[in-house]
């Protein structure tokens, strides 16, 4: 077979005619695996890859998001400290699938040890001189810096601020190149699926949430660390492995923008389909255990105050609304002239703020607050009626929240 003009088939024509087996097989495996993103949104990775494949343009890039914006999340950091090549393998497979020539690995600059590990790993790959080019980037660490549009914005304009994306699905671009942004752990799973196949991947987990996942367990636990668990395991057994308080008051799931789960529901299967009825999700694999001695509202208030400070302040409802929520929660805790009215105002503000930002940052905080009002209902009643729980006076905090930085000291570049 040759072209009508009599000249031999070009490489492109050859690939179009016969296909490249590696790409086809890899794509099939990824699709069959049903892998969901591990960055928090749980979007099907195969769908993302399809979307990028359908984009025109030869200069595509893969962006590996190892920013880990959640302060109590350690899974991506742990992964890069123990097995960075798995993440890079996955990135390479994804680059092959979408035809990318460059892989931008983004690690926050505050983790100098992790940056060093990744640099070593990239150097080792460089020596092999094959595959796409890897470039290491170290953006500043912010909560929203892990949001994919904020990360891409930083790569383009040196500002870790989320973008407004009204039309979904929306393909982000680094410069003029369509970009596939993937979480580091997701990339690692792709690396394993590429090697061992979809059937192997599906041996663990549930049909809707296949595979294993990394979880960061902190709070009232003896072994606060990162565990790898099959999705669908009961939360109770995951907590037991970490040496958690067997009778916790509540568990924070997903991240600071996630939701509280009452301790009595800890027999739920740890997977999205089982958690959704409770208003929770796996999110970024974060689990924080809070004991009965704690005040859930106080814990929530500290999170909300910090999240308000981490707003990129681009949108009014978030910039004004989140500090207002923190203030209202604080007022509920301290007591006031008309606590019930403050509570009502808090609920109204939640409804008003929800969904009106460019990104999901305010939505996450609203979800957290609403789930707190539900899960800690009795405590809230107590505070409002003038008989606060004993946990509010405790100085011991169970959800680790970083210190509030002054606005002028926040680094977005």
């Amino acid at each position, binding site marked *: 077979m040759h072209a009508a003009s009599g000249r031999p088939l070009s490489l492109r024509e050859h690939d179009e005619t016969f296909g490249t087996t590696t790409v086809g097989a890899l794509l099939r495996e990824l699709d069959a695996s049903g892998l969901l993103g591990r960055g928090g949104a749980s979007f099907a990775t195969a769908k993302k890859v399809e979307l990028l494949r359908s984009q025109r343009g030869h200069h595509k890039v893969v962006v590996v998001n190892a920013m880990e914006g959640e302060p109590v999340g350690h899974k991506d950091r742990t992964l890069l400290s123990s097995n960075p090549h798995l993440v890079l393998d996955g990135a390479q497979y994804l680059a092959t699938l979408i035809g990318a020539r460059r892989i931008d690995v983004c690690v926050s600059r505050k983790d100098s040890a992790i940056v060093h590990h990744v640099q070593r790993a990239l150097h080792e790959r460089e020596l092999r001189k094959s595959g796409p080019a890897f470039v290491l980037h170290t953006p500043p660490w912010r909560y929203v810096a892990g949001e994919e549009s904020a990360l891409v914005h930083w790569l383009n304009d040196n500002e870790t601020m989320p973008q407004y994306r009204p039309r979904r699905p929306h393909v982000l671009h680094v410069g003029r190149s369509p970009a596939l942004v993937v979480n580091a752990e997701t990339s690692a799973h792709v690396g394993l699926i590429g090697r061992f196949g979809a059937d192997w991947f599906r041996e663990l987990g549930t049909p809707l949430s296949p595979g294993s996942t990394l979880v960061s367990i902190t709070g009232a636990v003896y072994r606060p660390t990162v565990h790898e668990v099959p999705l669908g395991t009961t939360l109770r057994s995951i907590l037991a492995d970490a040496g958690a308080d067997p009778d916790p008051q509540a568990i924070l799931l997903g991240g600071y923008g996630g939701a509280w789960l009452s301790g009595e529901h800890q027999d739920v299967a740890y997977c999205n389909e089982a958690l959704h009825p409770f208003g929770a999700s796996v999110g970024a694999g974060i689990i924080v255990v809070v004991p009965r001695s704690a005040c859930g509202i106080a814990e929530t208030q500290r999170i909300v105050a910090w999240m308000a400070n981490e707003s990129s302040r681009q*949108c009014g*409802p978030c910039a*004004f609304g989140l500090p207002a929520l923190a203030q209202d929660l604080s007022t509920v805790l301290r007591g006031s002239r008309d606590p019930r009215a403050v509570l009502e105002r808090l609920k109204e503000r939640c409804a008003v703020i929800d969904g009106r930002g460019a990104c999901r940052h305010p939505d996450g905080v609203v979800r957290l607050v609403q789930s707190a009002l539900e899960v800690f209902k009795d405590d809230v009643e107590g505070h409002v009626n003038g008989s606060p729980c004993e946990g509010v006076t405790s100085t011991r905090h169970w959800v680790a929240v970083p210190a509030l930085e002054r606005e002028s000291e926040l680094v977005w570049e």
Partner: protein
Amino acid sequence: MSRRIDHFVLKVDPILCDGFGHCHELAPELVHVDEWGYPIINEQPTSSSDLALLKSAKLAVRGCPRQALRIERNSDPT
């Protein structure tokens, strides 16, 4: 035979918006304002045959000092 009804909805870019509130003045049926001055836009599509509302929406788009508003049209078969 199905009739097509055109609908429109006002959309705001929350990053461009700076809470001037001109949209609320020009299209009060479509835009309310929160306690901080930022627009709460009715997300329910309005029929394009409601010319008065469509006119208000267009005035709001034109009157926004930050050009943060847009009219999104979609037609759905009845």
